[in-house]
């Protein structure tokens, strides 16, 4: 066991400080002993076994460990010195086994993968093959990169302003809550279907007809009555809006005629050639909107 420890220490040279031009990940603290983070293996011989355990357990798996080995030495992930990295990887695996850490099976799978790649690299390359296909490391490199980008994405997510850690939601109490009923919503279609149905039902009464279409006239009749309700008395001319054009004027005129026919308005004239005035009717006969006759 002891020899292994020494080997590890001698094989873990203090990494050079990351160059300023490479805003890479800062090397992870390698161990935390009594609250003190250690970024490098201590030089002295005695390493508390717990510290190593913490260090080794800090890896999220074989890809993470490999990335650590690569990044620690500032190696190009696209051109990994496989023999060297494999050797270092195996030392960590042996160390974990010696420390009797429960070693996840994935670490051993990776060890086998590394061994296999290494042996394939010793074989001559097939002619005519694409460089990347032919390089036995390609798949490993892809997986390392893929893992690394999500490792970094996780770090990025962790730096987002998170609720209840970086920012806090605010609340102000409302002392007196009132009971509020929200108003029902209606769609135009619902109303039209309702209309269609009520008309269909009404038509089952033989003597009842709802056939006439006088939509805009009806609307104008309402408008005129409402205006008269407010003003009481209006000049005939005022009921017309020339800007509406001939159609609008006609509709207004028909509405006035209709209102007169229904006895809802009177048109009065003080003397001949004086302006006509319109007022709500004081007398008159009942005329039905839906006069069956």
């Amino acid at each position: 066991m002891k020899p292994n420890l020494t080997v590890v220490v001698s094989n873990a040279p203090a990494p050079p400080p990351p160059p300023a031009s490479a805003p890479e990940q800062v090397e992870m603290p390698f161990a935390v002993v009594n609250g003190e983070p250690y970024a490098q293996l201590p030089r002295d011989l005695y390493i508390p076994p717990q510290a190593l355990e913490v260090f080794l357990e800090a890896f999220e798996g074989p890809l993470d460990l490999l990335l650590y080995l690569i990044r620690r030495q500032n190696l190009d992930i696209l051109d990994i010195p496989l023999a060297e990295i494999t050797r270092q990887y195996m030392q960590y695996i042996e160390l974990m086994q010696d420390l009797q850490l429960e070693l996840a099976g994935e670490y051993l799978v990776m060890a086998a993968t590394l061994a296999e790649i290494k042996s394939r690299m010793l074989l001559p390359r097939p002619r005519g093959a694409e460089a990347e296909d032919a390089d036995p490391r390609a798949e490993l490199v892809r997986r390392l990169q893929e893992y690394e980008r999500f490792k970094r994405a996780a770090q990025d997510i962790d730096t987002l302003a998170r609720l209840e850690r970086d920012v806090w939601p605010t609340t102000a109490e409302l002392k007196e809550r009132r009971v509020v009923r929200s108003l029902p919503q209606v769609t135009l279609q619902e109303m039209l279907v309702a209309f269609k149905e009520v008309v269909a039902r009404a038509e089952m009464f033989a003597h009842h007809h709802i056939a006439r279409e006088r939509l805009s006239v009806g609307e104008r009749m309402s408008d005129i009555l409402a205006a008269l309700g407010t003003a009481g008395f209006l000049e005939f001319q005022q009921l017309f809006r020339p800007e509406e054009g001939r159609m609008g004027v006609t509709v207004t005129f028909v509405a006035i005629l209709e209102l007169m026919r229904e006895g809802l308005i009177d048109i009065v004239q003080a003397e001949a050639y004086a302006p006509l005035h319109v007022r709500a009717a004081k007398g008159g006969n009942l005329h039905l909107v839906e006069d069956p006759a």
Partner: protein
Amino acid sequence: MSETYIRNVIEAALLAAGQPLPLAELARLFEEHVRPGTQELQAALAALEAEYAGRGIELKHTASGYRIQVRRELAGEISRLWPERTVRYSRALLETLALIAYRQPITRAEIEAVRGVAVNPNIIRTLLERNWVRVVGHRDVPGHPELLGTTREFLDYFGLKSLDELPPLAELKAMGDINLQLALAGEETAAADAVVAGDAAAAGAGDAADGEDGAEDDELSAGGAGSHELVAGPRDLDG
């Protein structure tokens, strides 16, 4: 410690805490070497209080400390955050509304004549309260019944420029219900947009549009107490 900083921290803490905070706890938020004294804290609280004048929130000092709360004046508006379950309008109401829209000006008796049942006064009241319908005059017959018409709000709500945009009855009849839905799909979203509230709630209302027939039947049969009126009603009109 700048005054602004003290005020900012206190405001943020009171809003984040969700409960009243005593002065001592407010003081503890600051690092020991920059901790403001009681006077400074109280000055900051007074500044906050002044700032909230004319706003929807206020600073309150209660037995357990300071708290920022919503002003009572806004209780009506803010309570709308927690509305009671929305009830849907009955078929009777929709039919009444549709008749007023298409046949205005129209009296209640005339609506009853077409629908064949008495119109519940609540329906007219609801429509008046909703500002979709208004009294545009009175028919000059005994009792001077009110003549009802639709309002500008009605047009706005349904996204119509004028009543002309309602499809004529002949067209409605020609369309099957499904065609009607298709033809109006565009108009409907326009209506929803026009009301700003054109979102979840509006969609919800739309979704809920079906299968309400049970309730409507009830209402109809309730009205059906007057099933003899059905025959009588129209006659009255004729008279």
